[in-house]
């Protein structure tokens, strides 16, 4: 990676990590994780039923909070994407960057890497909080190494979803100079993808809507009857599809941004 890309990525990362939305939503997610784990703990303490397998319990706790974590983090990736590209274009600060001896493709790549490394860090942080709270409340599960692999795969899938979101928001920022157009389009996209489609589970729609695809892929995450390897091999083609989707949108971003008059 060239030093220019690294520099832009580092700048983007440090600029976004101090944004009030990032700080506020991360604190909110930690509180949400605490509520879910404590709620499960109290429920098990009160119930008179047979003890549940620690392995199942561990996976259930992470999966019960994953929808909220996913919806909040993809919302966050959307807002960071808007701040990063549309915000800079609207305020004119991107012109300073363009006057430097860097290729435009390096700018896009730097921004993409900076935002996504922040998102990856946030995903790992929030999921680690979930795991830590679960371990404190219920102790070590019986198949801990496999469970950790499952959780890491889940985190990777969530990262891919967020990367698609940031890439599309960057595309909106590249296409429209006005920040409000980017804002309204990004919010509309979130409403259409995250709020409306998850109720419709058909094979064709999952290829158009990444949220739907993501929800279908994580469906068997906590199913201990399916081994980790079987689960991963069943979702691998879709992971490749998501990666190709990210690459395609990224190339479109680069193509438009390198040819456009700022």
């Amino acid at each position, binding site marked *: 990676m060239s030093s220019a890309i690294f520099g832009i990525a580092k700048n983007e990362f440090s600029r976004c990590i101090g944004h009030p939305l990032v700080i506020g939503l991360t604190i909110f997610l930690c509180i949400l994780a605490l509520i879910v784990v404590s709620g499960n703990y109290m429920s098990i303490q009160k119930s008179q039923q047979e003890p549940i397998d620690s392995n199942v319990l561990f996976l259930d706790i992470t999966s019960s909070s994953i929808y909220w974590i996913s919806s909040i983090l993809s919302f966050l990736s959307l807002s960071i994407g808007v701040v990063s590209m549309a915000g800079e274009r609207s305020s004119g600060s991107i012109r300073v960057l363009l006057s430097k001896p860097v290729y435009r493709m390096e700018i896009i790549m730097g921004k993409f890497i900076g935002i996504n490394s922040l998102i990856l860090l946030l995903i790992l942080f929030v999921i680690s909080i979930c795991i830590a709270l679960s371990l404190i409340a219920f102790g070590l599960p019986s198949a801990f190494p496999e469970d950790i692999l499952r959780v890491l795969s889940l985190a990777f899938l969530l990262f891919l979803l967020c990367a698609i979101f940031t890439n599309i928001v960057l595309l909106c920022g590249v296409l429209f100079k006005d*920040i409000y157009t980017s804002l309204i389009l990004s919010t509309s996209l979130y409403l259409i993808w995250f709020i409306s489609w998850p109720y419709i589970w058909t094979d064709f729609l999952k290829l158009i809507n990444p949220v739907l695809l993501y929800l279908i892929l994580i469906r068997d995450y906590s199913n201990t009857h399916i081994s980790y390897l079987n689960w991963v091999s069943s979702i691998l083609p879709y992971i490749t599809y998501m990666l190709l989707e990210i690459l395609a949108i990224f190339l479109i971003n680069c193509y438009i941004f390198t040819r456009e008059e700022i």
Partner: protein
Amino acid sequence: MVNNTFQIAVKEFDNLLSNRFIIIIFTVYIIIMSINAYFDYFVINLPDIIHYEGAGVSNSNFLNGLSFILIYYGTAIAVIIGFCSISIEKKSNTLNTLITKPLYRDTVINGKLIGCALFLCLVSLLASMMYLSEWMVLMGNIIDLPIYTFLFDTIVVLLVSWVCQLIFLSTSMFLSIIIKDDVLALFAGMFIYIFMINIISNASFALSLGNIFGSHWTGFIAGLGPDNLAYGIIKNSNDLIGNYPGYISNVVNLMAYLVISIVLSYIAFMRRDIA
């Protein structure tokens, strides 16, 4: 003063009608509505599904779908309309021009609120008509009650969902007034929407809190969601007078939300330096 308020309301309504962002959002609303109508059609026609309201498509299926559309998505649209009404005018300096005129600030905010509320009313009416026509195209005649009963039920749904939308509209206006950064203002409004409609109303969230603080908290927390309060009123629409004790607390809570959010936006608009 009333005349000024009326003029500002008309101007606000007109601005919203010609705003390209509102056109984008309305298009999105129609897309979401069509997806939902198709989904309802898909679910109702599943061979193994058990209809708790009797076999076949009924107008209560339609009213459930309509209340979901107007409350769940209509409130999100209200957040964006509230943002457009304050932030975009702030950016283009039209709000600044307006508050330099010899008008009381409460006249301005009254006019804005009335204009936006009427606009939301129009959006809900159009959305309901489109949703009804989509259902009729997909599922044939769905009205199995006398037409006046059906109209009365629809009006109840429209009115209750309108109150919900007004809560989010005034909250979004309040956030747009107090937060200078526009991106943050919109996303803060959207976060409040996600929190109130997706998280507080969620049964597992309420159950988790109920497990921690005691089971009597579960119902209380779930009941804090404006959508749950609204559904609680709508389900009694067949006998609003007879079932009055069952839903009066929901009406009080919903109105409390509305009053608090409107008062907050009033105070912010009166005291805040808008420019």
